[in-house]
């Protein structure tokens, strides 16, 4: 694992699962409970990580949606994938827009694509889809024509 990540997570309670960077492009995965997210994101920001992407994966068989937050470092590569699971019927993920302002657009996109509510989000308007579009196209039960 990259030393930047080790340094950042050394004093925190988050336990990363190592990943082979050469083979996958990711240094580690971290499974996070929603209540711990704020502390984790502050840890990322304080150690100079930048937000690479926010998205979700629809795990239809498990009836869950997994939120995926990927951070990287300008002195890296030091790519961390933070993952939070939420119920598929009423998916709620914590918003990190107040810590990383750039996250607001990523959250707006993920919210409209998957029908996820980002708790504490300052901006809940649609970003890419039309204002009146009531479907969530990246859910697996939304069939392409």
């Amino acid at each position, binding site marked *: 694992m990259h030393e930047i990540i080790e340094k950042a997570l050394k004093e925190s309670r988050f336990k990363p699962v190592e990943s082979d960077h050469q083979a996958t492009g990711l240094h580690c995965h971290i499974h996070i409970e929603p209540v711990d997210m704020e502390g984790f994101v502050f840890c990322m920001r304080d150690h100079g990580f930048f937000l690479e992407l926010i998205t979700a994966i629809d795990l239809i068989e498990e009836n869950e949606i997994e939120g*995926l937050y*990927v951070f990287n470092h300008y002195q890296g590569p030091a790519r961390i994938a933070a993952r939070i699971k939420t119920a598929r019927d009423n998916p709620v993920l914590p918003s990190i827009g107040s810590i990383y302002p750039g996250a607001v657009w990523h959250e707006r996109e993920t919210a409209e694509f998957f029908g996820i509510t980002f708790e504490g989000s300052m901006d809940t308007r649609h970003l890419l*889809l039309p204002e009146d579009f009531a479907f969530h196209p990246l859910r697996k039960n939304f069939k392409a024509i």
Partner: protein
Amino acid sequence: MTTNPATTIRHSLEPIGDESFILNLGPQHPGTHGVLRIIVKMDGEYVLDADPVLGYGHRMQEKIAENMTYSQMLPYMARMDYLAALSYNQAWVCAVEKLCEYEVPDRAEYIRIITVELNRISSHLLWYGAFLLDLGAFTPFLQAFADREKILDLLESVTGSRLTYCYYRFGGVFQDITDSFLCNVMDYIKYLRERLPSYHDLVSGNVIFQHRTSGIGAITCSDAAEYGVTGPILRGTGISYDVRRNEPYSIYQRFHFEVPTGETGGCQARYTVRMQEIEQSLNIIEQAVTTIPDGPIKSKVPKIIKAPEGEVAMAVETPRGELVVYIVSRGGKTPYRVKFRVPSFSNLSIFQKLARGKLLQDVLGILGSLDLVIPEIDR
């Protein structure tokens, strides 16, 4: 006593707080690139707030990718960023090669480097022309387009298309390049090196250009991290982050090149960084052309790819910044989930912050300096 009318006329452009109005920039305003609409709240000549409205070119590329085989998706990649189609080609083939552990022959890697760097120069040249057009200068646009056209001709001779290339294949490239192509590339390197001083004579030292760009639209290092800014905009702030150097893919570690950085993080720094990047790309191409080995251009790869289970994140440096293709595979012919982390998306998200409190003409300059390609944001 009557008031002198001359004293009641306001000459200053300072906002006085009673003239705020909404101005709609776009969807197809000539000052914007692609179909980008910006709702601007103005007070006189000053921008109070600027809210980009996206999605006019939205095609749900990520859903398309989930419903296609890996090779069917390849031509779609070029449609996301039509100015750097080969970078997108490369990101997709490299991601799948990483997922399936395919080998790429040396000659194919060299061909990829030569063509993708030519594509980078053509993208930067187009930006140069369009940016200066935004600032009100017309001649540089014609000059840059004439030189860019020569690259398009070169790339057309090997790829068969002018902009939306689909040239790379899993495990190699579509067809081999000829020696005459390599000669033409060497001629072009010599030609552009001779031309570049005239770019600087025309623009870089120009007083109007200096006034329009210096100190405008500055980004700090912490702003950049908070918004996930990458590419020349990031390097303009002095952070030397280039995926080709930080996380070398393909065979970039074999070439000597510098990662140009600026200091002020403003429009002028971005200009300088991009102009130096053109020179660095020329250096990379020159090294690749002189050292390209003979050999096969494609390894043996099944016609229909069945990827193993797994997740890969493949980052490449496009002319606009870091592109990440994130594939979640559950085995089979189609990916389970694909995410495209596109550079312009994050680079535009900082625009609102940059625009607040600036003069409208400066805001248009900032917008031009961001080098946006809207279809890649909308996807």
